[in-house]
Structures are given as structure tokens and as C-alpha cells.
């Protein structure tokens, strides 16, 4: 029987792959995709917890929807930033963006 553990493991896999994508990728958009993946794994967790721990109260799913909303907003702004970045530096490799260097 599929239990909460299965979903959690799946979400963990998703999260770690997303993390790998976010940290190890050179291209800004690839990093961004990694982040999206991590967000999705979180959503999966939320919905799984809601389904397996308190099916009667759908707070988890509501939360998941809010995450999706935020993710959507984030993607739009994120891509806009990458676009502006590209216009300035003519490439989107994350290593060149190090203005934060002290």
C-alpha cells in the first residue's frame, strides 16, 4: 500500500535533483529550472502530508496552491531579471554575476 513514506522519498529525490540542478548548472535558466523543481517537490510533500495525515482538513492543499501562485510570480520576475541581465552582459552564465563580491 502506498504510504506517506513513498511520497516523502519521491519528494526527497525530486528535491535533491532540483538542488543539483540549481547549484551545478552554469546557465541561469537551468538554475531557475532546478529551483522550480525543488518547489514542486515541496508541493508534493504538502499534498502528501495533507492526504495521509489530515485528509479532512485541506489546509495542505491550500498551502500548495499558494506555493504555486508564488512560484508563478517568481518565475515571471526571475525570467525578466535574467533577460535584463542578458541584455547587459550578453550571456547568462551565473559565474559572471558576482557583484556581491565584497
Amino acid at each position: 500500500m502506498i504510504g506517506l513514506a513513498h511520497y516523502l522519498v519521491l519528494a526527497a529525490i525530486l528535491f535533491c535533483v532540483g538542488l543539483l540542478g540549481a547549484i551545478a548548472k552554469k546557465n541561469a535558466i537551468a538554475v531557475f529550472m532546478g529551483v522550480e523543481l525543488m518547489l514542486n517537490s515541496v508541493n508534493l510533500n504538502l499534498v502528501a502530508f495533507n492526504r495521509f495525515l489530515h485528509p479532512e482538513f485541506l489546509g495542505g492543499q491550500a498551502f500548495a496552491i499558494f506555493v504555486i501562485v508564488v512560484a508563478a510570480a517568481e518565475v515571471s520576475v526571475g525570467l525578466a531579471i535574467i533577460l535584463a541581465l542578458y541584455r547587459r552582459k550578453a550571456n547568462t552564465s551565473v559565474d559572471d554575476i558576482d557583484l556581491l563580491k565584497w
Partner: protein
Amino acid sequence: MLGVIFFYVFAAAVVVGAFAMVFTKNLVHAALFMAGTFLMIAFLYILMGADYVGAVQILVYVGAISILFVFGIMLTKRDRIEDSNRFNRYGPAATVVAILLFASIVITTLGAAIRNAPAPTGDSTIQTIANIFLSDYVLAFEFAGILLLSALVGAIVIGQGQLKRTTKLRPAAGGGVQGGGGALGGGAGVGLGQSTKGGDK
């Protein structure tokens, strides 16, 4: 029994999609794999009875976000797209950290005593979610709206580059082109034109 099969199929698809997204060379393929993964996740939601969330997932992630990504890739396309999804210096270290993190999450989850609740009644969840949104989380709901609006405006402003500014602010050096830009649309065009020209400098 059917559910178990569905779960494993979808789960496998999700995992394969995720790995494919990360390890393909071509960025566009990665985007498409991402879309596929989101779709499979949507099906998992539906499997768990969260039909509304699954629908929203398909609508937003698969429908909108993946497409936006493809837009993003196309707008910032450099020379060879086949090889645009390479790893940087932190590759090996990142994999080690990812594996360690995965191991630690799994150790903790397996250790925890989880009591699985019985399957839900099966009726649609939209009704209850709507009630929750407009009763407990009404505030969050409104803010979500505001958030989306501000993201919208933000994306436009950042995405389209500099608004047309009066020449006084900008120093003469090389500013000729920006200064001459026309209205909002022109600005975007100029932004684009300037970028490609900038490329071959």
C-alpha cells in the same frame, strides 16, 4: 491495487524526467523534460485525491511556467543551443551534497513512525478549498492577488529594459542610441537591438 501501479508509473516518470532535465545537454530538451515532470506530478496529485491542486498544477506549471521558460531560453539564445546546459565548477561537490542531503532526509523519514490515515471520501475538493480560502485564509488569498499584480508589473518593467530617459541623466558616451529610443515599445525594440549589436562588439 490499481493505485499502486499508477503511483509507481508516475513516480518513475517523475524521477526519470527530473534526471533527464538536469543531465541533458540541450537546454530546450531540459525545459520540455521539466514540463513532463510537472505533468506527472499533477497526475500524482490527482492520484492522491487532490484534484483541484492537480488541475492548477497542470494549468500553471505545465501550461504557463514551462512555456515561459522556453520563451526565456529563446530570448537569451546564444550560439550553440545544443551545449547550453553545462555544469559549472561545483558539479561534483553539488552531487555529493545532494546525495548526503537525500540520505539524511531518507534516514529521518524512515525512522519516523508514520500512521497513514484512511483514503478520503473521494468527492471533489474544490468546495472545501474554496471555503477555506474565503474563511480562514482570506487575507492570504487577497495578498496572493496583490503579489501576482506586483510580479506582473515588475516583470514588465525589468523585462523591457530602460524606460526612455531624458538625455540629461545619461552621459554622452555611447548614449546616443538609448536617448533616441521612442515610446514604450520602441524601448523594448531598442533594448533588443542594442543587445545583439552589443553581442558582436
